């Protein structure tokens, strides 16, 4: 009896693991930052390097922090939707321009539209490392008290926005618009 039962059990367990593995996304690495204070930064502003922009600019607000670069193809795909989100309004989007060429980044915003309240220039990638960024585009939802509420890796889409972001924003703010003025 054991002679048959044991190999079959082992086989079934191994196949079970493999089957589960088939539906896991190896590109998805859960961020240890969730529920923790968002890393602070203060970097030159893309449109005016003599000024800085950073976590202080959305202190006390619910905000999106979007990591983008002109070398990032998916960023280009998601860009029109970010512009749309910025136009419908309700929540500020702060850009983190990751290891990019300044002239190209400015041209990108000129031709494709600028959805950002401001973009910070992270030329060395140090702030991106603090945020655990590894694949642009990445979008973080930062709460009123400065904690990271959610992180989305890859392109922002209407489906992701409605499924993951809106409920969390509603929980934080009671819905859109969710600005400094709107009461919690």
């Amino acid at each position, binding site marked *: 009896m054991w002679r048959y039962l*044991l190999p079959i059990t*082992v086989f079934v367990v191994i196949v079970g693991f493999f089957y589960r593995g088939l539906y896991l996304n*190896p*590109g998805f*690495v*859960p*961020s*240890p*930052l969730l529920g923790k204070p968002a890393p602070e930064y203060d970097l030159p502003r893309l449109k005016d390097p003599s000024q800085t922009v950073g976590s202080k600019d959305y202190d006390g607000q619910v905000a999106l922090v979007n990591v983008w670069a002109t070398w990032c193809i998916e960023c280009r795909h998601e860009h029109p939707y970010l512009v749309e989100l910025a136009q419908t309004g309700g929540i500020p989007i702060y850009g983190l321009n990751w*290891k990019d060429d300044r002239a190209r980044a400015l041209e990108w915003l000129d031709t494709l539209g600028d959805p950002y309240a401001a973009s910070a220039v992270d030329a*060395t*990638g*140090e702030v*991106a*490392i*603090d*945020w*655990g960024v*590894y*694949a642009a585009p990445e979008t973080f939802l930062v709460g009123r008290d400065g904690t990271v509420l959610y992180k989305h890796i890859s392109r922002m889409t209407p489906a992701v926005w409605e499924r993951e972001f809106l409920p969390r924003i509603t929980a934080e703010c009671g819905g859109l618009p969710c600005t400094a003025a709107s009461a919690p």
Partner: protein
Amino acid sequence: MWRPAVHRSERAVRPVLAAIALMLVGSASWAIDPEPAFADPAVQAEYQSLIREVRCLVCQNQTIADSNAALAADLRREIARLLNEGASREDVTDFLVARYGDFILYRPPLQPSTWTLWGAPFVLLGIGAIVVLRIVRSRARQSLAGDDPA
């Protein structure tokens, strides 16, 4: 002048040998970027072993020592900076795990969520040992029975 007698086939082999020799020398230049110089050889050794244990999250089956992805270069630079500031090995891994999670380490820490991972090889080895033992015993019994002059 004395010249070694060179057989024709040997002459044909020479360029190949030269090419192989060049390849061997070439490996020295495969170092991923100009090595950051540490004054202390112990710190240099720590750096070398650390970058071989940190996963490049862009190209997940490579270490940051292997990868020439921009993020890998940034992480190497960051690790070098921390070590130069006197950080210990634990400080560096804590820094990385706080930002990227345990997945960035090729050697995941032993904790409830990884017990299966760490334990499975030993469990499987145990099962294998039991199976082998049973087979060997039953064969020994059979051969004893076979030797018995009935």
